[in-house]
């Protein structure tokens, strides 16, 4: 135990003396209240601590203690369904302890200590095990099995292991050298959890949102950023993705979020059904909530806490999706703390190490061959397993200006860019993703999946729709000058088809019962309907006046397709396609 005394207090940064032997990033307890903090600077005899709680009332000379270890996330069964703050304090338990408002110095165990879990071993006495090996599992939630893994720097031969009911702290088994095997382990959050190696990503994270699944996909293990000015629908989009994406586990970090919006997540997630299993969505979700008025240092930490939890489930062989809303709030926390330390500022007052911090964070995403042996399906003890963490980070550029440092530094790293557009948001086109500026670098990696799951045609049609939208943009510039009436019929048709693509395909309501989730196959049918109808209209152009083409019932048919029920859309879509291919034939005949 290292013990010293407070020498200076200035906002969330506290300085202390007499802490010989303390290391950067060690966890300390500050003052008589034992406020938690982290060492961020060592300067001669004096150290600087970023305190996770308000420092009002602290005084010079109060004790500072540390056991010389960094902040450790507690990992074990019982994480799913929990809501933590940035330093993994369970918020529901804090409520029971300190009431509606969070009192300082309040602590609660991240994982229930006395809950019994039914442990089923998958290895037997005599097996030799090392870091990452699965030794058994417990049913953590009705749909998710929690695989118990050997922690780092433990290895040996199993001397004893038994099925039964255990708390997380009881030993489920023993190694020959007497080391007890427990279901809980801890991990320093700022250090990425290792994997054997990263592997290429080839499966999309299916989100049920057409703009992503079709135009700008992100694979399982990829990363994407969503920058956009306030009010452009970032939060709603992140939430739709969290609800609908086909990840096994969802970690949602509300970093500097609005209290009432966090409440929306906290209230709605428990009621939402997982579209695939029908079970409550919370069964596969962990929330990290550090609203804007909660202490800034804990906000900075929340990102790391969240990604460590995500990596832990990845290591079991799961596909994890992590949502961080918003990484700008995190970067601002970095800036604020850096300013309090009197560090020389870089661009726009952000610390010079912003770029490397952002890069480090996104690099923790990826698809990996996990450490250790044992695979989830039936747990084959000798095979290796794959898992992934997909990171989707919202960025809130001040004034919607994408040239600011956080957006730019994130752009350098992210594989997909979903650019939100205030103009689209103003006209209530949601999701307000600009199709001309957004991109995904993952299309090639996902080609095989599209071909095998949907069709060869998919990628050609995607290109065709994209071209229509590109041309529309160019055409609009002409229309600005000469007006729409003076365009030729094919050009008019292009504009009207482009509008259909925008309004009836890209636009998708997050609040409509059916629309909220669109299976990729249905999106595929809709694309096919639009391209088929476009071709049909083109063939009719010389044969009937354009005003008649506009009156074809096809336009409306396409706009209705989005509402075809998701469980039975094939039949209706096939029928619609047949009709569309015949549109206008009778009239012109």
């Amino acid at each position: 135990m290292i013990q010293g005394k407070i020498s200076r207090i200035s906002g969330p940064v506290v300085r202390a003396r007499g802490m010989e032997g303390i290391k950067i990033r060690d966890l300390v307890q500050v003052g008589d209240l034992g406020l938690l903090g982290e060492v961020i600077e060592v300067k001669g005899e004096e150290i600087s601590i970023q305190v996770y709680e308000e420092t009002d009332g602290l005084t010079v000379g109060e004790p500072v203690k540390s056991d010389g270890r960094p902040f450790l996330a507690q990992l074990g069964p019982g994480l799913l369904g929990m809501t933590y703050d940035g330093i993994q304090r369970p918020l529901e338990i804090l409520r029971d302890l300190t009431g509606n408002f969070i009192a300082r110095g309040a602590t609660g165990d991240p994982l229930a200590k006395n809950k019994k879990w039914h442990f089923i071993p998958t290895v037997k006495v005599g097996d030799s095990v090392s870091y990452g090996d699965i030794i058994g599992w417990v049913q953590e939630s009705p749909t998710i099995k929690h695989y118990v893994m050997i922690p780092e720097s433990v290895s040996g031969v199993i001397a004893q292991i038994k099925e039964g009911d255990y708390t997380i702290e009881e030993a489920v088994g023993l190694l020959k050298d007497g080391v007890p095997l427990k279901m809980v382990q801890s991990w320093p959050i700022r250090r990425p959890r290792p994997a054997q190696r990263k592997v290429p990503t080839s499966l999309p994270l299916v989100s049920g949102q057409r703009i992503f699944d079709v135009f700008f996909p992100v694979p399982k293990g990829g990363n994407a950023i969503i920058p956009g000015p306030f009010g452009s629908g970032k939060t709603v989009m992140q939430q739709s993705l969290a609800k609908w994406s086909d990840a096994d586990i969802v970690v949602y970090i509300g970093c500097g979020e609005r209290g009432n919006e966090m409440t929306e997540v906290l209230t709605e997630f428990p009621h939402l059904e997982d579209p695939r299993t029908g079970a409550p969505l919370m069964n596969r979700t962990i929330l990290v909530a550090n609203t804007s008025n909660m202490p800034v240092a804990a906000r900075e930490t929340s990102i790391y806490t969240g990604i460590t939890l995500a990596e832990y489930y990845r290591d079991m062989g799961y596909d994890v999706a992590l949502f961080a809303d918003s990484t700008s709030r995190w970067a601002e926390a970095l800036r604020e703390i850096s300013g309090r330390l009197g560090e020389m500022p870089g661009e726009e007052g952000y610390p010079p190490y912003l770029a490397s911090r952002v890069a480090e964070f996104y690099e923790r995403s990826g698809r990996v061959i996990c450490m250790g042996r044992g695979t989830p399906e039936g747990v084959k003890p000798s095979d290796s397993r794959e898992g992934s963490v997909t990171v989707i980070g919202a960025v809130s550029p001040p004034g919607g200006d994408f040239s600011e440092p956080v957006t730019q530094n994130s752009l350098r790293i992210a594989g997909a860019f979903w650019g939100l557009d205030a103009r689209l948001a103003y006209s209530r086109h949601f999701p307000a993703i600009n199709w001309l500026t957004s991109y995904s670098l993952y299309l090639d990696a996902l080609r095989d999946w599209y071909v095998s799951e949907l069709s060869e045609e998919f990628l050609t049609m995607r290109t065709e729709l994209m071209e229509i939208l590109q041309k529309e943009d160019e055409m609009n510039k002409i229309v600005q000058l000469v007006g729409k009436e003076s365009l030729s019929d094919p050009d008019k048709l292009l504009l009207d088809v482009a509008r259909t693509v925008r309004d009836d395909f890209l636009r998708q309501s997050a609040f409509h019962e059916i629309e909220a989730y669109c299976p990729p196959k249905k999106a595929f049918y809709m694309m096919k309907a639009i391209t088929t109808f476009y071709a049909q209209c083109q063939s009719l152009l010389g044969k009937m006046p354009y005003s008649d083409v506009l009156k074809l019932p096809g336009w409306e048919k396409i706009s209705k397709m989005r509402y075809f029920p998701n469980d039975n859309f094939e039949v209706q879509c096939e029928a619609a396609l047949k009709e569309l291919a015949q549109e206008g034939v009778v009239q012109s005949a």
Partner: protein
Amino acid sequence: MTTELYAKAHRKIQDIKGPLVFMSPVADVKYGERVVIVNSQGRKKSGQVLEVGEKAIVIQVFEGSDGLDRKSTAVFFTGDIVKLGLSDDMLGRVFDGSGNPRDGLGEVYPEVERPITGSPLNPVCRQQPKAWIETGISSIDMLFTLVKGQKLPIWGGPGLPLNAVTMQIARQVIRQSGEELVVVFAGMGITSREYNYFYKEFQDSGALASSVLFLNLADDATIERILTPRLALTTAEYFAFDKGRDVLVILTDLLNYANALREISSAREEIPGRRGYPGYLYTDLSTIYERAGIIKGQKGSITQMPIVTMPNDDITHPVIDLTGYITEGQILLSRALDRAGFYPPIDVMPSLSRLMNLGIGEEKTREDHRQLADQLYALYAQGKELEKLTAIIGSEGLGTFEKRVLKFTRRFEDEFINQGTQPRSLKESLDLGWDLLAEAPRGELRRVEDKHVEKYMPKREGVGAEA
């Protein structure tokens, strides 16, 4: 805020700079502690400890450092952080920006005392707001509905009727809520003319008896503005969560607040962020704005309407920008509409209520509300684009459809936005919305479902049919 009798006087001032006083160390001084400073003439000022160290203590003086010297000025440490005494008797009273009575009616005997910084509300204890508030203003009710427990700021450049629009909304809220409502008003750096306006409005609306006013006028000490909103919100939390009342908090003007914060920051020689505002402006503002909402299983609510002047009509100004990232939407006033003589000159496109969807729809407002709002927005946005286009090419090149959209746009501004001071019921607003939509061909109305069109769209000859 009294009592310094028991404390020992310290005369250890080293430097005085702007609103800050730097002292040699004093034992056991706490960070955030409240201090009382008495100068050689016996004039009292209040302050707060901003930094404690082994070498120096930094104090911010709320009334400014005028008249302080090194030698004879005495500093008393009260041993306590800044607190506010609260009681039911505060209703109907006017206080200054530090919480002292300003109306000459004597001290309030406190029932409880609370630290004015407040504590963050545990996110799991928040109740999702879902009761909408009828403001009587079509554009707000229809397009960005205010919800009880929301924080919805009003922005506009200097000279725009920010106060009038705020009070029009407040009046309506007061009328609807009746006895239950408590209005807490915090004026930071406002002129006495503005104050008189608000005072008279509260008086006329009959809300004065259930209001608490905290006032820091333009000629009062700047630094005091750091305290004023926190006093108001501590009061609001007391009435909402101790007494179970619905509380409407009006804060004006947050720009003055942020400028006071900047003043302290620069006196401390902190590294400035955008436009000289401190790097922690976002965190600081959030500790004000986030003090709104509803608690699970409790009566009472805090709805916040902060007013923020938008310098030079610049929506990217740091105070505006950061406000937008914390509050749940914004109501923006437009200079163009104001110049054209429209009232209320609300710029509907960038205005937004993030909690709207929680408060509207079947059984709350009406089933067609969301879709109708989306459609009005979409058509209006299209109309505004077309207006730009006609400015270049004239209306000659326009088709019938475009002309109809333009007509819709004109009527939308003339009738829907420009409603005057007379409140409209939601039904009137919704009906007017449908009436306007009838200007456009049905085929163009892609955001509204058929069932709503059939039920609500007025059937008139010649309109609504296919062009």
